[in-house]
């Protein structure tokens, strides 16, 4: 580190009260921004969990569908048409619904039911106990062993329960990529059993899952589905649609945006004000440095270094604090929906750079305005 930066660092850190105030301001702002954005990211990721867990390349749905759990059943002809489209390797139906389970203890628990195509079991989860073919046994269900698993009183293979007054039998335990958003357990069964056990409307197909012959066939398949009055989305498009719904149509996105903006303003106010006071207190000394022979660009370097050092340290502390709190929260609440993403980190970093930039700008302006002659005049 060059000598002038060392001076700048010592001037900054040796003024403990202001340095701590600056750090607290930036750390607090970063902590709040990361927490808010991570919670939102976690919610968005979990809202698309079914899409990730099933893993189909193309999802066919009613155009009014805006999230995976609120499907609008489609008539059977859509499936027949989908299968006849050039470029479709196969197309299968999948059922998404909810049911009430009566547990051994007599307690009731809502569950999310996924009905897989009887012939192919396309979209089946990875089993950690049991055999997938047992799903064809009478009243068979596979239970997902995720953070909500305990709500079903931790069943094992052979555990019986009632589901909408039908007998249910656990034949396997599965794991999935991502847990659901609404904190209810998920069970898998066959498509036909699902529509038998759960009261349905006239149409029963929640989604049609399509495997294209090649990636190049996807636009044509989407075009043909559109002609039927339905929508075919790739996995990423469907995830984006769900994210857009939660971001723009639920108010959640606006709330997060407002909280993030408030965190930024609070951080900027504290750091800007404190840094300005710091500069004001040292203004005469900066003037003295000028008189001694320091050049303008050297003083600017000192101030930028001080602001950047504080900002980066505060950023690191804020990210660490937020991550630590999320780890603690997940230890207590396994279903806690928060995830730190590169996007969140980058966004918070840019915000911190803006804070450092604004604070430095105020400081630099002030320091460049001071004339050594003012120091002589006293």
């Amino acid at each position, binding site marked *: 580190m060059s*000598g002038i930066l060392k001076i700048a660092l010592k001037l900054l850190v040796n003024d403990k009260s202001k340095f701590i105030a600056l750090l607290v301001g930036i750390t607090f702002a970063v902590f709040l921004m990361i927490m808010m954005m991570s919670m939102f990211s976690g919610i968005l990721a979990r809202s698309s969990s079914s899409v990730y867990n099933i893993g189909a390349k193309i999802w066919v749905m009613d155009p009014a569908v805006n999230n995976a759990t609120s499907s609008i059943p489609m008539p059977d002809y859509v499936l027949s048409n989908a299968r006849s489209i050039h470029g479709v390797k196969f197309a299968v139906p999948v059922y998404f619904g909810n049911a009430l389970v009566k547990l051994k203890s007599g307690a009731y628990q809502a569950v999310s039911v996924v009905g897989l195509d009887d012939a192919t079991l396309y979209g089946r989860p990875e089993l950690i106990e049991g055999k997938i073919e047992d799903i064809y046994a009478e009243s068979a269900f596979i239970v997902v062993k995720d953070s909500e698993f305990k709500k079903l009183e931790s069943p094992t293979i052979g555990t019986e329960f009632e589901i909408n007054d039908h007998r249910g039998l656990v034949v396997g335990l599965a794991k999935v990529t991502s847990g659901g958003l609404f904190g209810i357990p998920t069970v898998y069964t066959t498509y036909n059993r699902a529509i038998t056990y759960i009261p349905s409307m006239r149409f029963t197909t929640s989604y049609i899952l399509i495997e294209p012959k090649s990636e190049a066939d996807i636009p044509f398949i989407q075009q043909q589905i559109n002609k039927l009055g339905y929508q075919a989305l790739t996995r990423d498009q469907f995830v984006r649609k769900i994210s857009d719904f939660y971001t723009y149509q639920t108010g959640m996105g606006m709330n997060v945006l407002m909280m993030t903006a408030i965190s930024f303003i609070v951080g900027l106010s504290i750091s800007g004000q404190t840094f300005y006071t710091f500069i004001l207190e040292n203004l005469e000394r900066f003037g003295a440095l000028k008189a001694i*022979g320091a050049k303008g660009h050297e003083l600017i370097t000192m101030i930028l270094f001080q602001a950047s050092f504080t900002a980066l340290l505060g950023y690191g502390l804020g990210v660490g604090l937020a991550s630590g709190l999320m780890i603690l929260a997940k230890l207590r609440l396994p279903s806690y929906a928060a995830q730190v993403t590169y996007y969140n980190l980058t966004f918070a970093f840019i915000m911190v750079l803006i804070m450092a930039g604004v604070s430095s700008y105020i400081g630099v302006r002030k320091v460049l305005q001071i004339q050594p002659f003012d120091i002589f005049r006293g």
Partner: protein
Amino acid sequence: MGNVAIKADALVKWFGEGETKTTAVKSASFEANFGELLYIVGPSGSGKTTLLSMISGILKPNEGAVLVEGKNLWQMKSDDIADLRLHKIGFVFQDYHLFPRLTTVENVAIPLILKKMDWNEAIKVALEYLEIVGLKDRAQLQPVKLSGGEQQRVAIARAIAGHPDILIFDEPTASLDGDTGRKIVDFIKTKILNPQRCVIIVTHDSRIYEFADSIMKMEDGKIIGFERNTLHVA
């Protein structure tokens, strides 16, 4: 190097425009030589500080020229003037302007660090200068823990650490008691001044006039008297 350290030629400085125009220095000319302890004296508002600022490259005159070791100061670029200040001129400000968050030795090392000297080397050299001013044992203290006289000496150590040819003191005894003030000026005269260095002191403290080699008297922006090799001007 010739004998003339600084030559001021018909310097004029005014502030404001129109009815608010005030001329602080009116056609001031003088020479300060190496090996000379020159006092600029006069009442408050006489233009001493303005003149000092113009000859040290801090305030641009409206008219006239300043030659520092033969170079026309105000024809140089601002960065070159800053470089000249760093390498040729040492300042001791009235309020010292020491950095309270740095240690005494770090304060003294500042001109060396500005000259891009390695940090450890600068601290080592600064310690030598603290020894010259008798404050080596205070090296690791912060300036606020020193007395006024000690702070003055730290400021002197900082000013001379950069090996300047010209040293400028602004009211060096203003905030010191008489005895300490005399000791400081005696120290400047005996330890700091040498044949390769010119020392200019702005003061209106008549108690220290006896140390001067030359005294330049100012009033209302004009030089009204210049006496060399005299003990008292009154």
